[in-house]
């Protein structure tokens, strides 16, 4: 489920990439991504309750292959 203001869409091609999932969990400053090491499965997992904390820093976009993660501003 999206947040009130922000949604994050992950391309199916990288959704199961555990290395990327770990990297995202490490870099996101507001803990939107959950590391597979925390029992979230073997791919990219998102803490939906935290989506609206996104500070639009783009670090996740830079860490992922181009275009594979999208930050959607639901107010636009």
């Amino acid at each position, binding site marked *: 489920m999206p947040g009130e203001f922000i949604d994050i869409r992950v391309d199916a091609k990288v959704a199961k990439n555990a290395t990327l999932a770990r990297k995202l969990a490490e870099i996101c400053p507001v803990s939107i991504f959950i590391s597979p090491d925390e029992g979230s499965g073997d791919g990219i997992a998102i803490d939906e309750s935290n989506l609206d904390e996104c500070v*639009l820093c783009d670090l996740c976009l830079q860490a992922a292959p181009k275009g594979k993660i999208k930050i959607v501003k639901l107010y636009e």
Partner: protein
Amino acid sequence: MRFYEYEAKALFQKHGLPLGQSKLIDNSSGAPNQARAAFKSLDCGPVVLKSQVLSGGRMKAGAVQFADTADEAGEAAKAILPIEVNGQKCRSILVEEKTPIEQEYFVAITWDGRAKRPVCVFSDMGGIDIEEVAEKNPEHVSKTHFSSILPLTPRIAKEAVGATGVSGSDLNKLAPIVFKLMQIFLKYDLTLAEINPLAKLKDGRFLVLDGHIDMEAEARGNHKALLDELGIGDEETRQGRPPTEFELAGARVNAADHRGVAGNVVEFDGNLGLVIGAGGGSLTLFDAIRDHGGEPANYCEIGGNPSMSKAKELTKLILSKPGVEKIAVMMNVVSNTRVDIVARGVIKGCLEAGKDPAETIAIFRIPGAWEEEGFKILEKYGVDYCDRTVSMYDAAGRAVAKMQS
């Protein structure tokens, strides 16, 4: 952060200010016996017993009593114990020698916000309301500014005392006391150091009879050694009254998340909730609301880039206060707080409180970092907002007008 009288006096004593003999007794059921024992051990004749509370009005409430014998001291302690002064319970009782007074003086060091310097207010008409003296007998009150940066010299204290016409040996005895108070004020980052009354005794000596100390709350860390020495714990907020449930809930909101500040609230009786802050903006905006005839439900401080959830929880708390109809979200121009994050927080707070943000947020005036993004969010939810071309004063006026329409 306010000190009890006995703590203020302990600080004065540490710095050599002249004090009468005293004993502190606790607020237990054994206080009357302790008072009797204190009377005997002081062995100074008549005493005064003073309830230790953080509020003024002790004399009027009957929480200051006199005793000529040990038994009278016991009775006085028994009478003082249950008395609440402006909602404050007796923390302990100070038993102090009662001294024969010839004249009372007033001296206070505080900050003059307009002059941006400390000011020493001195009067040779102490023991009574200084504002009244200033109004009726202005020639008996001197105001002397001094620098908090340049070295402090005794000459400034002498000027302050002499300006009220005090001269000769009284001037020579009073000036060092005033000078020490100025030094204490600067050394401990105080916002108020007051002695009232400062008494001249019949034998020509001067004594500090009562004192008030307020320390800047932000400076507590710098003076931990002193606070430990005085037994003031980290958990003691030391405001003029105990915090309300609303204020405690605000402190919990603030403490739950380390990001930024949002939750330092002070409760008022009005109907307009305030989410305000930024570099003195809180005080300016609060005053502006009142100046326009509005009735704030709270004072608060937000800043330092609080998270969305912190702004949300603060909004929900303010909206949960009975009688609050709308909130005004206003700050000075912000550089270290994100406009869009605060916008998200207050809107989500309204939604989770079951309220329409467009109806509930009377005005949103936070210009600064990420304002375009913030304004997009506000537009989507139909919230009335303005940018920096609208002054804080005018924004407050818009909020008040909505409350009155």
